[in-house]
């Protein structure tokens, strides 16, 4: 109960700052004047009486400081004072203020930009189903300083049949591909993928279909194209399905269109 009344009194102190300060001054003045009068009555001369009164009272400012600290929450009041002082100082030197604000603005801007990038690259979940369960498997050989190396398909098949930690394993191998078209030859980015990759990621073609394992086994040359490629080359027409692309000099048949939100670089 005691601390509650003290807190209440100090909250009041916060609001009634001016009045309490004036009252303290009045009280102190009364005290000192009374002391001076008594000293005069005791036979001192006025200067002596005043000096003795001040001395017996002790340091006035330290006392007021203690009094103020006790009157309210010293921290809050000190913070308010610091704030007022800060605003006054800044107003007095606009050049400095502008520089400081500009520096702050730049720093905040840079941080925001950095965060936006990180958010996109690191923090935002991948646009696949069960993204939190996805893992990328790499071959590593520390003795040869090999990291994030490619793996032979045969190895992957072994891992896939023997592993018990993963629901499924699929492969993709991003390769630069030469496309021969009516306008000439150009280089595009492609990837050869295993037939289970799209089902594993929960990705369904917006048009057409994906590969089957049988087709993969028969090594048929089938491709899915990105949504953007579809729009650019075929104007979004259904005729794209079944059309032929010449990739690395070999005719490949388009069997499906990937969704627009499928990243063009899957990793």
């Amino acid at each position, binding site marked *: 109960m005691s601390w509650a009344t003290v807190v209440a009194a*100090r909250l009041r102190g916060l609001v009634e700052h001016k009045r309490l300060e004036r009252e303290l001054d009045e*009280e*102190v003045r*009364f*005290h000192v004047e009374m002391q001076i009068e008594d000293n005069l009555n005791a036979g001192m001369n006025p200067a002596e009486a005043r000096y003795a009164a001040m001395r017996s*009272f002790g340091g006035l400012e*330290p006392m007021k400081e*203690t009094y103020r600290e*006790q009157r309210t929450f010293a921290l809050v009041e000190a913070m308010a004072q610091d704030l007022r002082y800060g605003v006054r100082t800044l107003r007095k030197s606009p050049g400095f203020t502008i520089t400081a604000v500009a520096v702050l603005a730049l720093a905040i801007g840079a941080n925001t930009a950095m965060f936006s990038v990180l958010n996109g690259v690191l923090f935002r979940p991948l646009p696949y189903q069960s993204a939190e369960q996805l893992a990328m498997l790499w071959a590593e050989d520390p003795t040869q300083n090999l990291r994030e190396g490619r793996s032979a398909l045969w190895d992957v098949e072994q891992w896939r049949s023997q592993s018990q930690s993963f629901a499924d394993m699929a492969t993709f191998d991003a390769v630069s591909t030469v496309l021969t078209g009516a306008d000439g030859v150009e280089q595009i980015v492609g990837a050869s993928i295993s037939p289970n990759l799209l089902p594993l990621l929960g990705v369904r073609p917006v048009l057409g279909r994906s590969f089957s394992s049988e087709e993969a086994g028969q090594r048929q040359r089938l491709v899915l194209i990105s949504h953007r490629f579809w729009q650019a080359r075929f104007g979004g027409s259904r005729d794209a399905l079944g059309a032929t692309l010449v990739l690395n000099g070999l005719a490949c048949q388009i069997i499906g269109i990937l969704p627009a939100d499928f990243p063009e670089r899957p990793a």
Partner: protein
Amino acid sequence: MNDKADVLQGTLILLVLRTLEALGPLHGYGIARRIEQISKELLQLNQGTLYPALLRMEQEGWIASKWGASEKNRKARFYSITAAGRRQLTKETEDWRRMSTTIELFLGFEPGSLAEEGG
């Protein structure tokens, strides 16, 4: 605040409460004079330290204050002890007696003139 003033602050509350209980409402100067009169040679009271102590006691609810007219008809703030203040006085008096008894026992002193000053 130095060590001496700290020690004083604890006893100062006891002295103020006792003074107000004995003499009724008093202004700050009156309290200071009274304490000095009674303990003239023993206590060096820095009168200014009285006011933070009074504030604290008022916040605790041990004393109440009211503005009124002094004996010479000047505006002054009068302090008086409250019921909670009387309880606090009893408690602090006991604490003080127990403490001084303990220390006297410890030092092997006979309770002498020092013991009278508290009561």
